[in-house]
C-alpha cells in the first residue's frame, strides 16, 4: 500500500518559494467559487467582481492603487519586524495613531496656511506611529512583556483614543452631532498625481520604501544583523549584533510606516477623522507581508491583490448583494492556504511503498 510522505529537502526549493503564493491564490479562488455556488450566486460573476472589475478601467486601477498604498506601506514595516522575529501585530493601532497625529496638525491649519502644512501633517503621523510602536518596544525591552499581546492590546486602546477625540474635543461643532472632525482644509490635502484619479504621492512614498527596504535587507550590514536576530538568535548574539537594537529598529520602522499610512489616509482619501478610519489595513497588511514572502518586491504584488479583495468585497455588496465581510473571509483563506502551500518550499511530497522492512 503506497503512502504519501513528507520528505525534508536539504536546500529550500527556489521554484516553490515563488510558486507557493500562486498555488495559495488558486486554492483561495477555488474555495471562493465553491462558496459562491453554495450561496446560490454565479461563480463567474463572483470572480469577475473580484478579479476583473478592479482592473477594467483606468479609474478602477487608480482605486486599486489608492487602497494598495497603505497596505504596502504597513506591510513593508511589518516585513522588517517579522524578519527580525519581532511580532508586531498591532500595526492597526499604529495606523490609527498616525491618523490621529496627522489630524491634530491638519486641524490647526486655516485656509490661509501654505501647502507646506502637508509636511508637518505627515510627520505628525509618522511620529505618532513611532510613539505607539515605541510603547510596545519599551515594554518588551524593559519588562520583557510579550510584544504580540501588548501591540494587540494597544490596538483596542488606540480605537478608544480615536473615539475619545471624535466624540469629545475634536468633534465638529457644525457636524449635527456626528462623531467626526470638521473636514480638513484643502491645503492639508495630500497632493494627487493625476487629475481624475485619487492616486496621491503616497504611492511614491511606498515605492521608494520598497527600494529602501530592499537595500536594507540585502545590501546593508545592519539589515543583515536584523535578519540574523530573527533566524537564529544565538548566532546573532555570537556575532555581537544587539538584540535590543533589532527590537527597537523593527518596531520603530513598522510603527513609523504604519503611522505614515494613517496620515496619508486621513489627509488623503478620507479628509477628516471619523470612527471609521480603522479599516483593518493593519491586519490585512500582515497577510500582504506573508503572501509577498516578506520580500519588498513580492509585497507590491500582494498589496495589489489584497486591494482587489477589498474592492471586490465592496462590489460584491453593491452588485451581488453579498456582505462586504466576504473580503475578510478571502483574506483569511489566502493566508491559510499560503501557510499550507509553503510546506512545499521545505518539503517534497513523495509516494512511498510500504510493506518492506519486514
Amino acid at each position, binding site marked *: 500500500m503506497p503512502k504519501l510522505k*513528507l520528505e*525534508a529537502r536539504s536546500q529550500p526549493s527556489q521554484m516553490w518559494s515563488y510558486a507557493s503564493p500562486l498555488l495559495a491564490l488558486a486554492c483561495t479562488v477555488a474555495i471562493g467559487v465553491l462558496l459562491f455556488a453554495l450561496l446560490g450566486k454565479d461563480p463567474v460573476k463572483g470572480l469577475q467582481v473580484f478579479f476583473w472589475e478592479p482592473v477594467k478601467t483606468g479609474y478602477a486601477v487608480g482605486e486599486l492603487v489608492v487602497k494598495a498604498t497603505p497596505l504596502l506601506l504597513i506591510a513593508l514595516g511589518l516585513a522588517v519586524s517579522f524578519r527580525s522575529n519581532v*511580532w508586531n*501585530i498591532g500595526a492597526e493601532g499604529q495606523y490609527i495613531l498616525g491618523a490621529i497625529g496627522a489630524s491634530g496638525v491638519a486641524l490647526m491649519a486655516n485656509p490661509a496656511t501654505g501647502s507646506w502644512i502637508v509636511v508637518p501633517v505627515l510627520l505628525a503621523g509618522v511620529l505618532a506611529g513611532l510613539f505607539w510602536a515605541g510603547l510596545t518596544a519599551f*515594554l518588551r525591552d*524593559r*519588562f*520583557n*512583556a*510579550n510584544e*504580540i*499581546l*501588548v501591540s*494587540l*492590546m*494597544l490596538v*483596542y*486602546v488606540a480605537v*478608544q*483614543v480615536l*473615539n*475619545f477625540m471624535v*466624540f*469629545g474635543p475634536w468633534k465638529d461643532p457644525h457636524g449635527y452631532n456626528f462623531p467626526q472632525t470638521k473636514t480638513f482644509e484643502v491645503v492639508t490635502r495630500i497632493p494627487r498625481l493625476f487629475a481624475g484619479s485619487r492616486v496621491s504621492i503616497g504611492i511614491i512614498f511606498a515605492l521608494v520604501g520598497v527600494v529602501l527596504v530592499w537595500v536594507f535587507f540585502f545590501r546593508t550590514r545592519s539589515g543583515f544583523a536584523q535578519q540574523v536576530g530573527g533566524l537564529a538568535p544565538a548566532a546573532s548574539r555570537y556575532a555581537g549584533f544587539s538584540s535590543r537594537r533589532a527590537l527597537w529598529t523593527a518596531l520603530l520602522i513598522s510603527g513609523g510606516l504604519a503611522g505614515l499610512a494613517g496620515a496619508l489616509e486621513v489627509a488623503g482619501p478620507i479628509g477628516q477623522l471619523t470612527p471609521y478610519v480603522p479599516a483593518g489595513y493593519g*491586519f490585512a497588511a*500582515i*497577510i500582504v507581508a*506573508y503572501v509577498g514572502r516578506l520580500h519588498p518586491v513580492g509585497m507590491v504584488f500582494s498589496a495589489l491583490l489584497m486591494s482587489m479583495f477589498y474592492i471586490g468585497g465592496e462590489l460584491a455588496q453593491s452588485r451581488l448583494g453579498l*456582505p462586504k*465581510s*466576504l*473580503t*475578510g*473571509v*478571502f*483574506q*483569511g*483563506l489566502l*493566508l*491559510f492556504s499560503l*501557510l*499550507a502551500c*509553503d*510546506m512545499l518550499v*521545505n518539503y517534497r511530497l513523495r509516494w512511498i511503498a510500504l510493506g518492506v522492512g519486514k
Partner: protein
Amino acid sequence: MMDSYALLIAATLNAGTVLAIASLGLLINEKAGIVNLGAEGMMLCAAIAGFAAVVHTGSDTMGFLAGIAAGAFMAAIFGGLVIWLNTNQYATGLALTLFGSGFSAFAGIAYVQAQIPERPNFALPYLSDIPLVGPALFRQHPLVYLTVAFALVLIWFLYRTRSGLILRSVGESPESAHALGYAVRWIRMGAVVMGGALCGLAGAYLSIIYTPLWVEGMVAGKGWIALALTTFATWRPARVLLGAYLFGGVTMLQFHLQGVGVELPSQVLSMLPYLATIFVLALISRNPRWIRINIPAAMGKPFHPGS
C-alpha cells in the same frame, strides 16, 4: 449600596467565566507546547455558531454544542497545519483569527437583529435567598460553577495523573517524549482540539448567556486577554481562574464606576481591561527567570520527529 456590590460580584463572576473557560483551554494547549493565537477567531466563530443554533433550535444545549464543535473544528485545522505541516505557530494562529473575524462577520449578517428566547432564572434554591451572598454568588448560570469544577479537575489531571504527566512532558521536551515512544503529534493534536473546544464553549457562552445577542466582533479582544492570562498565571490552572475573575472584575468595574458617578470619559473606562492586561503582562514578565522556570520549555517551538 451593598446590593450594588453584590451585583458587581455576580457580574464579575459572569464575565470572568468567559475568560476562564477560554484561558483554561489555552492553558491545555500551551502545556502541550502549542500556542494558538487563533483564540479570538475561534471564539468569534463559536459565538455566531452557538447563537445561530439557539435561534434555530431554541435549545441552549444545542447552542453550546455548536460552539464547541466550531471551536474544535477550527482548532483541528490549526493543529493539522502546525503539528503535521510544521507551519509557524504564530502566523497560523493569526491566520485563524483573521479568518475567524472575517467569517463570523460574514456568517453573522443574518443574525444581527435576531432575538433568542428569554433566559430562565438560574437561581439556586435556598442558597440564592441568602442576603448579599445569594445575589452575589448563587444566581449564576450552571456553567459558572462548572468552570470552577473544571479547573479543579484540570489541576488533578495535570499534576496527579500519568496522562497529565505525559501531556506536560510533550510540552517540556517533545524530542524526549518521542524517543520514549509517545505519539507526540497526536497528543498535541488532542490538546489543541480540546483547547479549541473550550474556546468555542467560551464564545458560545458569550453570545448565548452573557450578552445575549450577536454583534460583529463581539469578542472584543477577550481571546487575546485569555492568552495573556496563561502568562499572568505562570501556567497554573488555579491562577488562571483567579486572573480570569480579576479581569472580569476590571471589565465590570467600568460599568460600576459609571454607576457610582465617577467622572471619567466612557472611552477611558473602556480602555481599562486592555490597559490592565498590558500592565499585568509587564509586571509578571519583568523577571525572565521566573517565566523561564514556569513556561513549558517547548512552547511555540516546532517539532520534527524522526530527524
